[in-house]
């Protein structure tokens, strides 16, 4: 079954298109990576998938439905975590914002509290649940956003540069966390400019720069001719153990 499908999608913010005639298919259960140089339209592609922008032309389908009608199946983690240092909410209150159904104005029900606690444990933040969100480090904040997206039990998880604020020491733990989420049956689409990180993690990858230059198995990315076309020069990928091989 197709989890996400781009059918000849063209979109731009001003007159010039950022992506042009992009067609891509992500199958259910895929761990799909989107790579490309800066300004290639990777984040735009993810925003379109999440229904945050309307394509100029073409169609985007999520589990066979138009993406704007599939919001309840989508979890989206933005590239830049909100940076308001004095945001008046605790970690568990932020995670609860991703619950479906949304908590009533009176507060969370017991099952909702338990679910939030469970997800926080999964991302390793159970001890921070009563901490004010503004007091967290960049890496912790990224995990909070991931927990917020996961607590709604999305079938399709869209992650935009999730390792941007994470230090190298935690990156491997974060990768393991993403692998666990994938193994539990969630389809993941991940955008990153970090080819090494990507080649380690995903099983399929698309290399884009306004259009699709390569789409196939992650293992063959390093040898692909298309990657040179997208970046405009040779690209060296340091290969890691590939969990899907």
């Amino acid at each position, binding site marked *: 079954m197709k989890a996400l499908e781009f059918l000849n999608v063209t979109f731009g913010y001003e007159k010039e298109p950022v992506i042009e005639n992009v067609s891509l298919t992500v199958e259910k259960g895929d761990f799909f990576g989107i790579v490309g140089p800066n300004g290639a339209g990777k984040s735009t592609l993810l925003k379109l998938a999440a229904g945050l922008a309307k394509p100029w032309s073409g169609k985007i389908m999520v589990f066979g439905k138009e993406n704007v009608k599939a919001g*309840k199946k989508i*979890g989206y983690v933005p590239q830049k975590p909100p940076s308001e240092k004095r945001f008046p909410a605790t970690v568990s209150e932020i995670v609860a*914002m991703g619950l479906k159904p949304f908590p009533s104005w009176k507060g969370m029900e017991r099952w909702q509290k338990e679910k939030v606690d469970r997800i926080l444990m999964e991302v390793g933040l159970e001890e921070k649940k009563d901490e004010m969100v503004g007091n967290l480090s960049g890496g912790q904040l990224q995990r909070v956003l991931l927990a917020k997206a996961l607590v709604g039990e999305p079938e399709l998880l869209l992650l935009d540069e999730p390792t941007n604020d994470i230090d190298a020491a935690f990156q491997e733990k974060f990768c393991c966390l993403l692998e666990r989420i994938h193994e539990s049956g969630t389809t993941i689409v991940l955008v990153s400019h970090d080819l090494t990180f990507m080649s380690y993690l995903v099983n399929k990858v698309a290399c884009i720069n306004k259009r699709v230059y390569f789409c196939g198995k992650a293992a063959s990315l390093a040898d692909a001719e298309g990657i040179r076309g997208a970046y405009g020069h040779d690209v060296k990928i340091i290969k890691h153990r590939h969990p899907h091989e």
Partner: protein
Amino acid sequence: MIEILEYEFMKSAFLAGSIVAIACSLIGTFVILRRMAFLTDGIAHFSLAGTATAIVTRSSTFGWALASAIAGAFMIEKIRKAFRLSEDAAIGIILPLGLSAGILILSAAKASSVEISAYLFGSIFAIAKDELALIALFGATAILLTAYLHRHFLAICYDEEGSKAAGMNVDFYNTAFVMIVGMTTALCIKVSGILLTSSLIVMPASAALQLNCGFKKTVLAACTIGILSVWFGILASYYIGVPTGAATTLLSFSMLLASAAAKKSLK
């Protein structure tokens, strides 16, 4: 202190001031979090056009102020989208536009300067019974709506894109938010005046946010600061004859400084 409550106008002032302070502090918390403080100023100034129309036509000033405040809020959004401008630029267009329209209407009708000044700086001691009823009705509506929708507002403040992607009808909640801001701004006009509206919406919430505590504690602190500021303004005005709006604003600002200092000393 008790004897002043024997006056009808004082009772009305305290009651109206408290309702408006709570409504403003509640919605003000979200206004600050969404970095829309200038929006309330823009809406308030734009509502002079409606207030001026009410003065000239001798109709309900609150009704006209409410309609023009909500219209102003939506016009800011329309201008922003139509001309692809930033929000502050759109507010920068709407603010003088409403002010100019108001001045033109008032000068054409040769309105008295006393009447104009009452709307520019507030006239909390001149609240008529029917106006008090309207303030109570719309104030309660704004408070209840904000309380009912606060979780959605908070989620949108924190991560608008994530909320939209997860299927939340963000446009609906944004429209509701703008309407509540418009309603609250119109409520402020009688209490603090058009020029000092943002002191009731922005300052108590800003002071409470300095404390860096959870949402419930923050709004509770904001409401307390708002109510105390208005009460102080009324008392200062009664006992030492200073303008209510200005005294309210100065106390709000003192509380902002005090809460920032308190937070710093606790670190």
